[in-house]
């Protein structure tokens, strides 16, 4: 039981800390501004080029083959420097790594990891949100290609994306989970229309809707075999639930740090309720940091988690929403137009965490049934 650094870890920490001094791009901690996403892409490439991205992924795909705990160290240093979090792409990388053949991995993973290729994820549909297995997008074989027709929503960065990981139904004869396949679909083609989705905090660049109307994808771009879409989706979704994968601890710590600075700068301006909200933002963020260290350490011993990801997701959600409440309480709504309205946007953004990657209700169902063994 050691939360401290090994000599190698300490060396890495020092090296990254030194690099950060000159390379902190000064972005906000989450998408409160549409410029953020362009900055994120540059930040991804900057981290990659300096050797600080994909730490725990295989070297063949551009990663560094380090234990996952290095991600936690990176996150701690990012937060300490007030730098933005690392782009969280692990869910896509793991989905492809675990389910694709070597050809797909070799063709797609290096560009995904090095940030030169932008990817989006075409899973959810207007009538298939929590109930993903009811998706209706279809892919029909036409020679060496499939033709895709359907409507996806919540496709992150779809406007900038070069590629989309699309789930589509290839077999209508089998039960609903079984007839789904996954494809890497090029976004730059006539059969695809992309529309921005405006979020409640006004951001339009994070999510989009994508309409596939006869888009074409080579059969060789199928990830796995026909019908393998569901297990791939489960891999992706389970990684989407893991704060260690997403690097969100750095997000929350950066926010808590900025809120602390605001209160310290003018302590008499804040009442007991606001100070209390700050206290809980700090406490929960620290809790999550240690929880992630514990989970990432389990991987050192080869332990991978199944339903425990739902525990992590709820802790992450509660932490983000506690930080969001502190942001609203302390930063408040800007009624004067003087400052910016970042804190209000942080609050509004925090509400999505209890929906995306599976609602909090779904996570609780999974915990009750699969961890606690309660009857259906």
């Amino acid at each position, binding site marked *: 039981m050691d939360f401290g650094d090994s000599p190698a870890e300490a060396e890495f920490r020092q090296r990254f800390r030194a690099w950060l001094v000159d390379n902190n791009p000064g972005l906000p901690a989450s998408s409160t501004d549409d410029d953020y996403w362009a900055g994120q892409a540059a930040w991804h490439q900057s981290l990659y080029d300096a050797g600080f991205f994909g730490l725990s992924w295989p070297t063949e795909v551009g990663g560094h083959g380090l234990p996952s705990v290095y991600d936690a160290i990176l996150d701690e240093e990012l937060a300490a420097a007030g730098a933005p979090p690392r782009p969280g792409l692990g869910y896509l990388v793991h989905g492809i790594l675990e389910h694709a053949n070597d050809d797909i991995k070799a063709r797609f993973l290096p560009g995904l990891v090095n940030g030169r290729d932008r990817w989006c994820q075409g899973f959810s549909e207007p*009538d298939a949100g929590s109930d993903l297995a009811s998706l209706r997008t279809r892919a029909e074989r036409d020679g060496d290609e499939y033709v895709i027709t359907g409507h996806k929503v919540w496709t992150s960065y779809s406007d900038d994306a070069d590629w989309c990981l699309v789930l589509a139904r290839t077999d209508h004869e089998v039960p609903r989970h079984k007839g789904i396949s996954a494809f890497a679909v090029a976004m730059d083609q006539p059969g695809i229309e992309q529309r921005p989705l*405006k*979020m409640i905090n006004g951001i339009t660049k994070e999510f989009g809707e994508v309409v596939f109307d006869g888009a074409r994808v080579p059969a060789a771009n199928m990830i796995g075999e026909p019908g393998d879409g569901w297990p791939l989706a489960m891999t992706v979704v389970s990684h989407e639930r893991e704060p260690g994968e997403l690097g969100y601890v750095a997000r929350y710590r950066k926010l808590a740090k900025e809120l602390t600075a605001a209160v310290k700068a003018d302590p008499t301006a804040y*009442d*007991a309720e606001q100070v209390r909200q700050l206290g809980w933002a700090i406490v929960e963020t620290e809790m999550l940091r240690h929880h992630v260290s514990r989970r990432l350490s389990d991987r050192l011993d080869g332990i991978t988690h199944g339903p425990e990801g739902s525990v992590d997701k709820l802790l992450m959600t509660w932490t983000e929403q506690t930080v969001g409440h502190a942001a609203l309480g302390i930063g408040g*709504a800007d*009624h004067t137009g003087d400052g910016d*309205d970042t804190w209000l946007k942080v609050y509004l953004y925090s509400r999505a965490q209890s929906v995306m990657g599976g609602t909090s209700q779904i996570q609780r169902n999974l915990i009750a049934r699969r961890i606690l063994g309660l009857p259906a």
Partner: protein
Amino acid sequence: MHVRFSPEQDALRRSVAQVADRLGPQAVGQLDDGERRAKLDAAVAESGWRELRTPAEGGAPWASGVEVAIVAEELARGLADVAFLGPTLAAELRRLTGAPAADDAAETVALTGDLAALGSTVAVDAAGAAVALGVRDGHVVALSVGAELPPVDLTRPSAEVGPDAATLAALDDDAADRWAALALALTCADLVGAMRGAVELSVDYAKERRQYGTAIGSFQAVQHLLADAHVLAEGSRSVALHAAWAVDALAPRDALAAAAVAKAYCARAARTVGETAIQVHGGIGNTWECLAHVFVRRALLATDVLGGEGPNLTRVLAHHGVGDQTGAGDGLR
């Protein structure tokens, strides 16, 4: 003790509800519909609801805090994007301080930058207003209303105020307390209306939206979220009605204490109810096109006007003789 609307109050409630339902925005896209908004404004102007706190003979207002709260609640429930809070509070400020009646220019009030008190920084609920009544150095002043500010509440714009102030009247403690009591009671009614509207919106969605082959409203987890939201709205309504009654029925400091109790309760409840509305709507609830966040944003403004949980808990505790230990509150005022 008869905590029921009179037949006249019931009729008022119905007529406000009709206007809000007929001319309020039914979808986010309709917020930009200037023609609709002009019709709504005309209907409200014609109704005389904005003049309920102008002085009748003897200086008493035409209607009590209860009538004003009824209007505020129903307008909020329908997300009516029309001036009411501001003009009402401006009229009350003139009435309480004996300032001369306004000329024809539409008026609102100017508050401090955080909206927590009367001031001279931001004009709230400023649609169509030319003048904002604020306070400087203990006196009521008239300020010109300038450019609209980036909106927090999509249904009620705030605006800059000009630097020049015409002094109208002195503001004594009793008048300040009575005014604050009305302001708090009004924002409580606004919050109650927003909660009721948000619950209705969410219940309707939960009945329609299907996942796993069934309406999501049949899941116990969703049912309980909505049940709690309904209960919070009902409790808020009871305490807000008391605050509205207290505005004219109790001594100024007691009226203010009653209003502070209501505001602390309603502000906390409204945050939870708004978050429930977003949650029940799932992904859709996190998009601009869903009305859930319009309710949330309206509640944010209503919460911030004269403060939410923190400042009002401080007021309540001070009223019970538990001193301000935070260094930031200001006792009952």
